[in-house]
């Protein structure tokens, strides 16, 4: 039972990350592989504020989101000139820069040793320390993120994003400052990812830089590509499949190390197979 809660919580967290990435990759056509850095910033900020300063989890989460939003603003401005493959390369670069900061800024992040002992959320005397209550909390957050994403993509703003994805120059001459649109969605996406990151930190009660590297970014990208770019159900379905699949592997009897590598192998294979045979993913609206 505990195990099922655990899976459900992981699924919720990755659903949040995937929806956040889809806003940028699927709806706006900006393939970013730096989202792991955003949940890293969210995770570290929340974790440190709660654990060292004793700030309430929900406030810490909010501050984590704001901080990530600011980083995304700066990053978005820098990346706004990059097109296509160069954009991917730029975000790849940032992932490594963020990772380097996590691992080397030892005075703040404690470097490779990570941040242990992160407490579970608490509010008004309610503590979310057991799996059941944490699951409820994450479910609520998934609902919030999903609703927010739905609001954004069904609005006229969302329509402009899709037009930007299809042909940025063409929509620009109709009077739309495309760089501003791209920047805003990038910030919204980053802040959502940070939300997930804070939750993740609190759930695992321990984080280290390894959790937020390029592999994680690619994992979330695989989820979105499998589930389907440009739809909201796609990331959710993708998260479901890709969280459950590795667990199925455990039962096949691989050793933990090998299982971990098999998990990575599957993501990579999925990316190749999807690109080759079904670029729009299972439920997607956008064919790369």
């Amino acid at each position, binding site marked *: 039972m505990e195990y099922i809660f655990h899976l459900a919580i992981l699924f919720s967290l990755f659903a949040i990350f995937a929806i956040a990435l889809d806003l940028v990759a699927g709806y706006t056509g900006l393939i970013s592989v730096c989202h792991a850095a955003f949940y890293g910033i969210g995770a570290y900020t929340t974790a440190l504020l709660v654990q060292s300063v004793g700030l309430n989890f929900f406030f810490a989460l909010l501050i984590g989101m704001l901080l990530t939003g600011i980083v995304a603003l700066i990053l978005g401005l820098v990346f706004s000139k990059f097109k296509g493959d160069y954009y991917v390369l730029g975000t790849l670069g940032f992932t490594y820069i963020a990772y380097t900061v996590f691992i080397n800024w030892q005075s703040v992040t404690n470097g490779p040793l990570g941040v242990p002992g992160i407490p579970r959320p608490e509010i008004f005397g309610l503590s979310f320390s057991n799996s059941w209550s944490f699951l409820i909390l994450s479910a609520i957050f998934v609902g919030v993120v999903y609703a927010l994403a739905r609001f954004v993509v069904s*609005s006229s703003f969302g329509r402009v994003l899709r037009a930007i994805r299809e042909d940025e120059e063409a929509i620009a001459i109709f009077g739309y400052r495309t760089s*501003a*649109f791209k920047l805003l969605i990038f910030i919204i996406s980053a802040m959502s990812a940070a939300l997930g990151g804070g939750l993740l930190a609190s759930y695992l009660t321990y984080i280290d830089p390894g959790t937020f590297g390029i592999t994680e970014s690619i994992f979330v990208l695989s989820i979105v590509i499998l589930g389907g770019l440009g739809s909201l159900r796609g990331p959710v379905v993708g998260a479901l499949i890709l969280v459950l699949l590795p667990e199925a592997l455990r039962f096949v009897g691989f050793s933990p190390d090998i299982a971990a590598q098999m998990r990575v192998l599957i993501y990579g294979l999925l990316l190749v197979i999807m690109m080759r045979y079904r670029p729009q993913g299972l439920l997607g609206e956008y064919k790369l």
Partner: protein
Amino acid sequence: MTYALQTKNLSKVFGGVHAVDHLSISIPKGKITGIIGPNGSGKTTLTNVLTGFHSIDSGALVVGGEKEYERIHSYDVRNLGMTRTFQNVRVFEQMSVLDNILVVLTERGLFASLFDSHTTFHKNTAQEVLTRVGLWEKRNENAVNLSYGQRKLLEIARALAVNADVVFFDEPYAGLFPEMVKLVSGIMQELRETGKTVVLIEHDMALIRELCDHVIVLEAGKLLAEGKPEEVLADSKVIEAYLGA
């Protein structure tokens, strides 16, 4: 005669070659002006410069006889009262026909668009322009599923939707069936009747003769001739430019 647009000594250089060479032309308001010239004469480059796709290297654009602009960003184009269609059709492929129109009717501010609930006005405008080009029944189809001709019509509907004062049609007739040709010509004439300015870039001389009030001929980025269609098309310089090209 008032001019909707004028260029003053406009130049655009690519790799040392003047695609547009110190060009000064005037587009009369409320008329259909054709821009013709052999391949490479600068017609599409000119259009691209005037609609913000390439930067102006020197010279300026004058809008409405008043304001001069030495720099035009893509997003300024609509504010300057211009819109256009593209020679290589650029519709929003993986969006529905209806969305292709609604998207250009959206509020242009970031936050305004977030809270913009497409009002009846927008929906009516979309229905109007789509019906005009005969695509209303296909409004929920993704643009990628339309035929080539239908996509061209969609682009035209999109341009009509923004109700711009000056509409550039860049080779709108290529690949269209005869009924569609008539439809497009009809649209241009209607625009003229409502006081809009039409700029038509075309190769088909019969259509130029039929539709245009005024014709401008470019060659190698420079003005070669201009005037009424019959005059220009009989001009020996023009004939030579086309034959020699």
